[in-house]
């Protein structure tokens, strides 16, 4: 690692005062230190935020949850309110990484994970995300794990988080505080598509800190499922993951949510698909129609055409499981 300054402020304002283009916040460090060891990020200053009062989970007036940015992934997955009311989120978190990493990783940090693209991770190769303008060898190279949706000519990387796929489906909001004040960002807007500036993963400015994630009142505690398909049974990134949630009236879909991981530069969601499902029967035909619609614009690269077929099957499977959960 390139040497850096280290500070541990005890208030948010003090933390924000230390920010700068070459400074990074550190909490769990599970991805940041990994990147720094490969020289993929070389901050001059680390701001340790683990002393900030952002480690609580509380209920909101709206009946939802406010999750402090420093709550660990393990604590969040096993929080009684999350297990009861947002099982989709628990499931997604527990599908990610390893128990050790989930003990370390923070809620806020999970949103900021960077892609696992081979080329991004090897500083000796070109990569537009790492070095804008240097090129994208993945586009014509090894792209089995890459995007089928929303990719651009300059980047075909995918977002690696499991938790974020569930948060996208649950329509979480990201609470952010910066020098200029506080703001909230809809989860759908938080992560970006690569376009011609793949170096930017999300909308966060360097002087902004994620303080909390807010979940709306639970709507899908009865019928949800997170399905992750990967190259081994555990401790691997998703080839495809699906967060599927249903609100049912008998066999009819009152409302539905669907988000995919492993397919794009951000958790992939299309509200039109969810609207299409409203009022339909919770049947494999409906779910297949949703999959068709969601994947209509999918574009395969040389080695990842299987992802389209896989995503289709996974969507149908996840919805089917979701419909069956909570049914005795």
């Amino acid at each position: 690692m390139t040497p850096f300054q280290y500070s541990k402020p005890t208030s948010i304002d003090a933390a924000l005062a230390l920010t700068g283009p070459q400074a990074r916040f550190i909490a769990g460090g599970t991805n940041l230190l990994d990147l720094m060891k490969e020289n993929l990020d070389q901050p001059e200053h680390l701001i340790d935020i683990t002393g900030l009062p952002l480690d609580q989970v509380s209920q909101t007036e709206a009946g939802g949850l406010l999750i402090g940015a420093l709550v660990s992934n393990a604590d969040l997955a096993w929080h009684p309110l999350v297990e009861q009311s947002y099982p989709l989120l628990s499931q997604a978190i527990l599908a990610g990484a390893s128990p050790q990493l989930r003990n370390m990783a923070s809620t806020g940090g999970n949103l900021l994970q960077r892609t696992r693209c081979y080329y991004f991770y090897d500083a000796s190769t070109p990569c537009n995300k790492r070095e804008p303008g240097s090129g994208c060898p993945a586009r014509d190279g090894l792209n089995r794990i890459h995007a089928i949706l929303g990719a651009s000519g300059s980047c075909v990387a995918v977002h690696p988080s499991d938790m974020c796929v569930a948060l996208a489906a649950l329509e979480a909001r990201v609470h952010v505080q910066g020098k200029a004040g506080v703001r909230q960002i809809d989860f759908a807007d938080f992560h970006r598509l690569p376009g011609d500036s793949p170096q930017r993963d999300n909308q966060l400015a360097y002087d902004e800190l994620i303080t909390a994630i807010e979940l709306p009142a639970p709507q899908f505690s009865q019928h949800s499922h997170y399905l992750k398909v990967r190259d081994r049974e555990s401790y691997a990134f998703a080839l495809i993951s699906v967060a599927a949630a249903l609100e049912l009236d008998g066999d009819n879909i009152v409302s539905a949510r669907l988000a995919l991981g492993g397919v794009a530069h951000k958790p992939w969601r299309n509200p039109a698909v969810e609207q299409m499902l409203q009022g339909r029967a919770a049947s494999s035909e409906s779910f297949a129609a949703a999959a068709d619609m969601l994947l209509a614009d999918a574009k395969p690269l040389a080695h990842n055409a299987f992802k389209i077929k896989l995503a289709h099957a996974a969507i149908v499977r996840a919805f089917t499981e979701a419909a069956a959960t909570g049914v005795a």
Partner: protein
Amino acid sequence: MSDTPTDPSGQAISLTLNGTPRQLQVQPWTTLLDLLREQLDLTGTKKGCDHGQCGACTVLRNGRRVNACLTLAIMCDGDQLTTIEGVADGDSLHPLQQAFIEHDAFQCGYCTPGQICSALGMANEGRVRSRDDIKEAMSGNLCRCGAYSNILDAVEATLPLIHGGPRP
């Protein structure tokens, strides 16, 4: 608020390591793993990948299992740390260590300290209820020798004996 030291010998931290309070000087960029192995000669904690991808460096930080390779030492100020060197009670092996020997739950031994610390952390979590649960909960520790089924047997056999073991 603490700021970066200009002192080349690093910054002072205090922590409890295997039950003993320690005052240490660390550089901000020194990981807990390198602190243990290179500065304190506690080489029982292993470096298999240095990137959180193998689990060989698993230690207990305030009772929770973590990857020491992705933990900055400076961030452990005030923490309680247990490494493999602190698992046995003097000369008497922890039941899990004994079970690893009896079940031949290792071959080369390089992943073993991490496996043992991970299993202890898993027991503290108190979430596993079945053999399949243990398999998933022990999946953050790679074993290239392929001792998985013996590791599973050793952990399963010992879990009821460990404080904080599986809940009924």
